[in-house]
């Protein structure tokens, strides 16, 4: 196989890390997050889990600068590699593809604005489509694709801007569980070939233990950090149904079960 | 004195026989002789024509004195400069009509109109004025029903939804022939020498373009004289009358065959004032009535409405 034309931050040369310093956030009078301190080390995937409505998505928006924290700050430490077009790049739960653009068009969208065009753009697009196994779907419209393929397009789009950190908000939860399984394999594959830095928000503890180097457990709203679980087994060695992972997962579920129950029973104000 | 040729002016007109003076002046070259290059602008109703003069889309036009015209004069936009159609004893003039139902219920003369419904196009229209004056003279109380256009009025009259109306003879006579409507009197009996329509222009033309305005009135008067001679006084013989009808038919009832149109044109021939003379008394009466009815501001004077410097005031 040829060396990839473009690549994630090479973590040996550059090291951009993120640090969350005492982050707190309010929506109106409602406290959503409280005193979050967290390091996101380069080349690692940090999973964030927690019950519904505890502020996971909010946290991710704060990290990427899509929202301003009420208190505290998110610090970027070290320079993003110069090749990185958009250092902090999201992958959304609902794909966020423009339905009126083809697969190719959705990727070119994020390149056009950064002055990449012609053969350069062509090269980038071909490369990311190849890496996400989408080369045959280049001219397809989103409506023709299954959910799994749509999320692959979104991932290809994120790769195209060579992110220093990927911010993934439940990237698999809109997919059915079989597709989820397939995509999880693809993500592990992508990371194994070329490690990237990521914050990965999820509800799914199975996903978290499969893909996270560390797992941050948030409490119910206002979200605080309950525990950070480190998993040392290399990603590529983790498998569906591994006993040690199952153990970790059970541990996490025991930590969270009551909170999840309470969150489920909560009545939203009319 | 003829002006420098080709002063372009626009003349507003309705496709009615009563506007024939302008048509004659056009067809017989009287406007040309006065150095006027006239374009006609045709309207469906008189009211927009008044507004068009105010907006300077039209330079000269002929219409009944209406509340709208007086209001525009008050705003300094329009000015009456001469007279056109006039009721005259001995000439077939406007008729008073009643519906068949009202007629059968005993309204056989204007004296019996008390409590009836009188159709008008709009409050402040000439129909309103006529009805109001007739009612006052007969001590009758009329209620006035605005129906916007002549078409609906005829429909309402035929179906007995309104009781009475007044209209020019060439519409009144065919209607009465249908048996659904009856003629019970003449407007002229109540409004002798009623100045039905007037010539007007924008205040600017009246004040600042006196030569053009005079030239227009001269040509208009010549046309009126020809028309009166041919169809009203009938002093020129049948051939001239025939020729006049043919001329008018170029503008009026164009979509009807000549035979049908000719009858209507002949029936509709009412006198157009000689030399565009204006019956001041009638105009004053009308103005007073509008003020009394609170249709126009009470501050308006006769001189605001009329520029008396152009034509003979009777």
């Amino acid at each position, binding site marked *: 196989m040829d060396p990839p034309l473009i690549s994630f931050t090479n973590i040996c040369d550059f090291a951009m890390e993120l640090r969350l310093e005492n982050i707190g956030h309010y929506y109106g009078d409602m406290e959503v997050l409280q005193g979050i301190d967290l390091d996101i080390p380069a080349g690692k995937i940090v999973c964030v889990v927690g019950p519904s409505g505890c502020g996971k998505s909010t946290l991710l928006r704060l990290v990427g600068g899509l929202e301003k924290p009420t208190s505290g700050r*998110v610090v970027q430490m070290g320079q993003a590699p110069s090749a990185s077009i958009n250092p902090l790049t999201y992958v959304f739960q609902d794909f966020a593809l423009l339905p009126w653009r083809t697969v190719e068009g959705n990727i070119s969208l994020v390149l056009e604005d950064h002055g990449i065009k012609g053969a350069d753009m062509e090269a980038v697009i071909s490369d990311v489509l190849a890496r996400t196994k989408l080369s045959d779907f280049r001219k397809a419209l989103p409506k023709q694709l299954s959910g799994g393929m749509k999320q692959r397009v979104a991932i290809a789009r994120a790769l195209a801007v060579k992110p220093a950190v990927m911010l993934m908000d439940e990237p698999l939860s809109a997919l059915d569980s079989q597709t989820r399984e397939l995509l999880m394999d693809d993500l592990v594959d992508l990371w194994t070939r070329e490690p990237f830095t990521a914050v990965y928000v999820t509800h799914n503890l199975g996903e978290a233990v499969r893909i996270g180097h560390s797992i941050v457990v948030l409490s119910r709203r206002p979200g605080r950090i309950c525990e950070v679980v480190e998993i040392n087994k290399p990603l590529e060695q983790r498998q569906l149904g591994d006993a040690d992972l199952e153990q970790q997962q059970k541990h996490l579920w025991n930590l969270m079960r009551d909170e999840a129950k309470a969150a489920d029973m909560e009545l939203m104000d009319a | 004195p003829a002006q420098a040729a080709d002063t372009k002016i626009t003349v507003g007109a309705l496709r009615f026989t009563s506007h024939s003076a302008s048509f004659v002046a056009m067809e017989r070259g009287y406007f040309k002789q006065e150095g006027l290059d006239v374009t006609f602008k045709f309207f469906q109703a008189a009211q927009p024509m008044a507004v068009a003069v105010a907006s300077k889309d039209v330079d000269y036009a002929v219409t009944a004195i209406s509340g709208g015209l007086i209001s525009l004069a008050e705003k300094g936009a329009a000015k009456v400069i001469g007279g056109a159609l006039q009721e005259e004893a001995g000439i077939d003039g406007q008729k008073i009509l009643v519906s068949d139902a009202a007629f059968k219920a005993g309204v056989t003369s204007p004296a019996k109109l008390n409590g009836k419904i009188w159709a008008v196009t709009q409050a402040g*229209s000439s129909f309103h004025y006529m009805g109001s004056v007739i009612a006052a003279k007969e001590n009758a109380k009329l209620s*006035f029903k605005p129906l916007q256009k002549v078409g609906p009025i005829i429909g309402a009259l035929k179906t007995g939804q309104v009781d009475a109306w007044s209209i020019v003879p060439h519409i009144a006579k065919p209607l009465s022939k249908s048996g659904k409507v009856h003629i019970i009197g003449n407007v002229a009996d109540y409004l002798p020498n009623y100045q039905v329509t007037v010539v007007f222009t924008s205040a600017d033309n009246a004040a600042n373009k006196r030569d053009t305005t005079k030239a227009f009135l001269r040509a208009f008067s010549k046309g009126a004289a020809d028309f009166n001679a041919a169809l009203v006084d009938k002093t020129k013989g049948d051939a001239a009358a025939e020729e006049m009808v043919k001329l008018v038919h170029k503008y009026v009832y164009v979509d009807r065959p000549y035979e049908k149109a000719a009858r209507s044109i002949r029936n509709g021939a009412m006198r157009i004032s000689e030399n565009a003379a204006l019956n001041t008394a009638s105009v004053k009466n009308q103005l007073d009535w509008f003020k009394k009815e609170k249709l126009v501001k009470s501050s308006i004077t006769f001189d605001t409405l009329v520029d008396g410097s152009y034509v003979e005031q009777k």
Partner: protein
Amino acid sequence: MLDSASKDDQRTVEFRGGGFAPQSKRWVGFVVFIVLISGIELGTRTGFITSLMLPRPSDVLATFVELWKSGLLWKHLIPSLSRLAVGAVIGASAGIGVGILIGLFSLARASLIPIVAAIFPIPKIALLPLFVIWFGIDEASKYALIAFGTFTPTVVAAYGAVDNVDRTLIRMGQSFSLSWFSIVTKIVLPGAMPGILSGLRVSFAIAIILLVAAEMLGAEYGIGAYILEAGSLYDLERLFVGVTILSILGVGVSAVIGLIENRLLKWRI
């Protein structure tokens, strides 16, 4: 984990979100109206705007006050309101009924949609002469004109609303063996309510617009008749008084429907 070089290189992540959520502040609206009206007042006073082009707002207000004091306001307003009410209620009810039929039955859909589509672009004023023959020049023809005008947009809104009722809810009803009638009354109709109500907003605005056309025919009193008279007398003050009343009426009706929506559709997310 970090080498010391980059330790010094610390920057807060830059904010790049927000926007694209324009907010409407009520007071701005008031300010704009006041500025606009003062502008016209000034323009007319300085002669920059002639009395032929626009009336002076203070004169319009004075005319309105006069109209009110003379008691004529109510004499004009009450017949108009009753025409609006009767006409709009007839037109909207018929429209909702027909719309629901179209939404439920193939035969109704196939036969009525083309007719409604053909009727839609017909200007109601064109039919005035016919309405006079059919309904006379009294109230009936005014009701009919307003009803006719509100009918077509209501039909379109109503069948659109029925079409948009979530089909899974209907399948749910069938899966619990609910009767056809229950499914229609308990699922289809409540589900179509939001669409129907928002259609009524448009229909009632059209009813108000048609008031003038309706009162062209033999109305002595009524806001529409008042406007027509003012127009024919070229009395701009009165014309604007009438137009303003209609405008306030329209905004009012829309606000009332908003209130009804808030009450009736509390269940919406």
